[in-house]
């Protein structure tokens, strides 16, 4: 839909409005102004301004036909010295249109679309800095006028951005609904899990008691059987008239020499069953069962504890309006770059995997400070960043992860995750801003804001066209 729209716009503007500009360069500034600053006063400045490169807001300083006073008031010079390609004023104000002054600035009117100031050193250096090419008139380079494309690109970017913001904001509201509904649930969960944990704790205690009882019983059983065995051997010994007095006080060793006695052997065999055979297994199984039950009870207890702690943690976290950031909880996002795989688990940890090695790039520490941003980061969209900075509420656009695995000869790894508006949770980029310090941009609807000033496609175009035609007439 968008593309189609621009297509139309292009065909409309190409032939009339912009075409005229490129043919009549001298008038292009004027028209640029007329288009956007309809004031008559401005247009009068414009047409008098044969002075190249002045910022329109400073135009009045250049109005005297005979003299010019440097803007820092350091001296007054003949008007002919202005833009004579020689620097007279310390502040560079006499040479707005040339490269003569080290401290000067050149104003790119850029047809009023994307006007900006550039340092004088960029005038006539062979590089087109103004999209209109007005900074290059020496003939070193022929600049093509790209203002229209740039402007449309910019608008298009802004529109896309706006669209994402709008869509994302809708999503955010929906998410909020969900998380808000969960608010009650979460609070309940804190209670519930706490109770459950306590219950499990109690049960596991009970189980421990039960186990003790059981073990005692098994021990008693064993002891009892031993007694029976001893008694039988004793009986046999008595019957063989071999006096062994006070057998109970004798050591087990004493049985040894009796092993060869066939009857003793038989008795031993019989009772082996009691100690090593099915009867023993019975007891063992019973014991195992108790242990198993105890262990599952323990796991249960642990799980309940984790659960409990998790909800307690959620309870402690600042999850914003309607608990909306709960949306990022338990929601790990993966990102592959070259041979690294990064994973961000918001509120938990960041990891980096490479060839089966996993490095922890930090544990969640806190919502970060926006002022902490590293200056040498790769800012693709400086303006976007700044806008977002202004719109930022609290610290909810940056998460700090610290205390990761230690680097060789370096610090512990740490990561800053910047949250930007996007339609789904995804990592946009990862950089190592300094040794073992990472920065990631995470796109998520949960930080999308309601666009404040709605950008619209300049319906000006049609008006402009009318005006253009009018001017030409």
């Amino acid at each position: 839909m968008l593309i189609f729209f621009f297509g139309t716009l292009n065909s409309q503007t190409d032939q009339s409005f912009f075409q005229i500009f490129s043919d009549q360069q001298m008038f292009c500034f004027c028209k640029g102004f007329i288009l956007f600053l309809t004031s008559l006063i401005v247009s009068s400045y414009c047409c008098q301004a044969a002075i190249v490169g002045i910022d329109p807001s400073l135009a009045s300083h250049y109005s005297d036909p005979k003299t010019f006073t440097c803007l820092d008031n350091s001296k007054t010079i003949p008007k002919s010295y202005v833009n004579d390609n020689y620097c007279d004023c310390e502040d560079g104000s006499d040479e707005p249109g040339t490269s003569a002054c080290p401290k000067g600035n050149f104003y790119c009117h850029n047809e009023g679309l994307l006007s900006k100031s550039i340092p004088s050193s960029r005038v006539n250096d062979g590089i087109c800095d103004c999209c209109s090419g007005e900074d290059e008139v020496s003939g070193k380079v022929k600049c093509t006028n790209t203002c229209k494309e740039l402007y449309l690109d910019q608008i298009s970017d802004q529109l896309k951005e706006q669209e994402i913001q709008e869509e994302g904001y809708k999503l955010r509201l929906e998410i909020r609904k969900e998380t808000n509904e969960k608010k009650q649930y979460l609070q309940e969960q804190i209670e519930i899990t706490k109770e459950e944990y306590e219950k499990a704790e109690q049960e596991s205690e009970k189980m421990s008691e039960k186990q003790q009882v059981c073990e005692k019983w098994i021990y008693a059983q064993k002891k009892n059987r031993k007694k029976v065995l001893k008694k039988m051997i004793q009986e046999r010994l008595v019957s063989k008239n071999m006096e062994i007095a006070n057998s109970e006080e004798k050591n087990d060793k004493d049985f040894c020499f009796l092993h060869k006695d066939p009857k003793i052997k038989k008795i031993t065999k019989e009772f082996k069953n009691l100690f090593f055979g099915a009867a023993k297994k019975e007891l063992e199984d019973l014991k195992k069962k108790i242990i198993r039950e105890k262990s599952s009870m323990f796991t249960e207890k642990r799980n309940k504890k984790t659960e409990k702690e998790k909800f307690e943690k959620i309870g402690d976290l600042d999850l914003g309006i309607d608990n909306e950031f709960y949306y990022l909880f338990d929601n790990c996002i993966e990102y592959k770059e070259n041979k690294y795989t990064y994973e961000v688990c918001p509120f938990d940890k960041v990891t980096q995997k490479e060839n089966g090695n996993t490095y922890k790039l930090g544990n969640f520490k806190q919502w970060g400070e926006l002022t902490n941003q590293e200056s040498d980061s790769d800012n693709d969209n400086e303006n976007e960043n700044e806008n977002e900075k202004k719109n930022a509420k609290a610290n909810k656009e940056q998460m700090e992860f610290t205390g990761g695995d230690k680097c060789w000869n370096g610090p512990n790894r740490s990561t800053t995750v910047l949250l930007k508006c996007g339609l789904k949770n995804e990592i946009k980029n990862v950089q190592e801003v300094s040794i073992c310090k990472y920065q990631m941009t995470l796109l998520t609807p949960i930080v999308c804001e309601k666009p404040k000033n709605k950008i619209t496609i300049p319906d000006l175009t049609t008006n402009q066209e009318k005006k253009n035609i009018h001017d030409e007439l």
Partner: protein
Amino acid sequence: MKKIICFFLFLFFLLLCCECADQSKFKLCSQSTFCENNREIRKNGSGPRFSFVPSSAKVDENKNLFQIDLLRSDEVEPRLFVEISSVIPGVVRVKINEKDPDLNRYEVEGVLLTENFNYQNAEIVSQNEELILLRFGSEKEKHADVKLVYGSSWKIEILNSGGEPIMVLNNDSLFNFEMDKKDFLLNKQKEKEKEAEAKNSDNEKEKEEEEEEEKNQEDDQPNYEERFGGNTDSRPYGPSSVALDVIFPDTEHIYGLPEHSTKLSLEDTEEGEPFRLYNVDILEYETESRMSLYGSIPVIISKPNNQKTLHGIFWFNPSDTWIDISTQETQTKKKLFGKNSRVSKRAHWMSETGVIDLFIMTGQEGKMYQVFEMYDTLTGFPYFPPSFSVAYHQCRWSYKTQKEIQNLNEKFDEYDIPVDVFWMDIDHTDGKKYFTFDSRTYPDPKQLSKTVSDKGRKLVAIVDPHIKKENSWELYKEAQSNDYFIKKSDRKTDYEGHCWPGTSKWPDFLNQKVIEWWGSRFSYDKYEGSTSNMHIWNDMNEPAIFNGPEMSIPRDTIHLGEIEHRNIHNSYGFFVTKGTFEGLIKRNQDQNERPFILTRSFFAGSQRYSTIWTGDNMANWDQLKYTESMLLSLGLAGAPLSGEDAGGFLNNPDEELFARWFQTSAFHPFFRSHSHTDTKRREPWVFGDPYTSIIRESVKIRYSLLPFYYTQFYKASTKGKPIMRPLWLVFPEDANALNEEVENFSYMISSSMLVSPISEKNQISKDVYLPKGCWYDFHTLEKINSKGATYKIDAPLEKIPIFYRGGKIVPRKMRVRRSSHLMQNDPITLFVFLDENKKSSGSIFIDDGHSYDFKNSNKYIHQKISFQNNKLFTKTLNSNYDPALIERILIFGLEQTPKNIMDNNNQDLIFNVDESIDMITIKKPNLSIGHDWQILIQ
């Protein structure tokens, strides 16, 4: 990737630990047999005595060479001979070698420019029982006298025109020429012969004994092995060191012997370690240490007391070399007036092997720079690199991705800091295989090259001489199949060692074919991704080997022709740059583009091919301070194109140190910021204001001075004059200037500007010595009329003391742009600083900045500009290039307000006068560099 990095970090960590903890990786004199032995000889006077054999003295048919034999006191037949010649006017060559040509020792070829040799007529002027007087010169002019003194020990004196000795060889009989193994073999042979004679009758026994003897001979072989740090040097040829003492009579200061981070004037070493020249990779080197560093130039420059000249000695030997320096005080009763004692310096040279081959460069009174021209005629004038290399370079280990460099390309503009070159350190390669790019991180290097060149900028890529042992790599296979690698001592298998890529091999640069092959790898079709916009950095070319003895290659490894590495060690890095240089020339079809090469290791002659930097320095104030003397020393030893890692490679500089470092580095011939991968990021904007502004200002000052600097580069390449100069070189008659350098580290740029760096924390003013004359503060343009005194100069964080010298004209370009290329057609501002006689002069060189057209087709402008008698005028030496417009002329120190100023067409020029600083500004005089003109002030 991470794993590899970690591995390297780990290695580095190890290195760091080992090296900062102790310097035990590197030999002390006492751990080096030959150094220890020669020092012993000095202490005990126990060396072998040699004397001339007068009857053998002769001049050859061509009258080029004088020869005389040397006889050892305990022998009958002389086995050594001395050869004396004068290969260019004023340069005396003394060579000592073995007589038996079969025993001739290896002499490295390709360092000396023998094509420049212009043998002077040798003539025996007089000869008696005590001495021979030799004279070298043309018929019209004598250039040098050499006196040979017989005695019980030989002695040679090189005389100046007044007949006074300027250098004396073997005055203290420290000459040594070890031939132990040969002695052993000779004795063995003699014994055998004797025995054979004696037992002639007893034939039966003979056979048995002979066999036995043969066995014995092998067992008897003395063991010459030398162990150090877990490595064993087999030394199959036994001790073969050469040593000699050289006296510099009546000389208090001698200089040179780079590379050492010591004071400029060479200090006595008797109490401690000698100066050592053995190229090694030291990660964290200390200041005030005479340990060897990455490069070696065995040159000493002597400044005789109270004379306005310099002499030099070039000890042409690329093996491990130690030099002890000492001071001698001798009583002289000859002169009734003046001093009755004089101070002399002595250098005791000791090299592991090779021959003695000395070049003594004799300067004439009044000519301070003659010695440099002589030395460069022998070893080559500095190369003339493309103009971008004079500008600012941005480096880091490493910019890991193409995107990172593209980002820098934008950031520098955003912060309005000019830059010309972005550097790609080892990580840009595919697994440290040089001549490749990592396709994941540098997917389109050609595009990158174009992106930066759109702003007139360049790339430099690192290419180290260790070749990864990877059988599937085409380059490795090629070298392997051609047998291009250095061999182990077994002479059969390739030597393997550890470096960045892991197991690696080292090409044998002694083989001319290898040099050509190496060069051929730089062709655009072979070096995929390279462009004409990309230049080369040769690092680790000592060669550096992580697991090798003293972090380098074993000395008993074998080069082509069965040459042991020990013979050529210090010249390995030189040959690497030679191959690179020739390759970069040949990669363009017209062979007309000037290469830029940076090297870490160097030897005499390296100036022909490369710029030098001082290696892995550290971010501390001390290192900043000693950088100046390191660079000055290089300049005095014929290598004026040098610089350091601004900011300090290792550790993190604080913002003050970083800013101060940039302020002085901006005046060094090579100006590059570089940092270790473990350090925090430190691109100029990282520190924020005021530091970023200070850095910006420093870089902009450098850019505004580019026309001046470029001219100095040109002059260095034609005259060999240092660009950075100690004060005493410019003011030889000023006794204070000799000490100035020691205390204050001030230096001159050419003879036109004085820079006095701030190298102490929190320092905000500095006592700066200004030799007699007019000086103009660089920042305020205020004049100081100095009588030769010290002035307290303000040096708040924003500036360091810098002065223009009265009597000099400095051309500048005041329109500083994003890169030097974009300033090429900008107009010039002439700064004319008058001396006390209201005179001034200067010159300017202009060409296309990148080709050899200046040489091949004379396409350049070279113009002299002078001010005299209120007249500013030019003398155009050559003007075969686009003239450069002059937009402004500033004249300082005229002390008069002109009525009018006219050009040669009697046109009045617009001017104004700032009386507060005595400055006349002439606006748009409509003149240009490249045309002759004059203007008159009335």
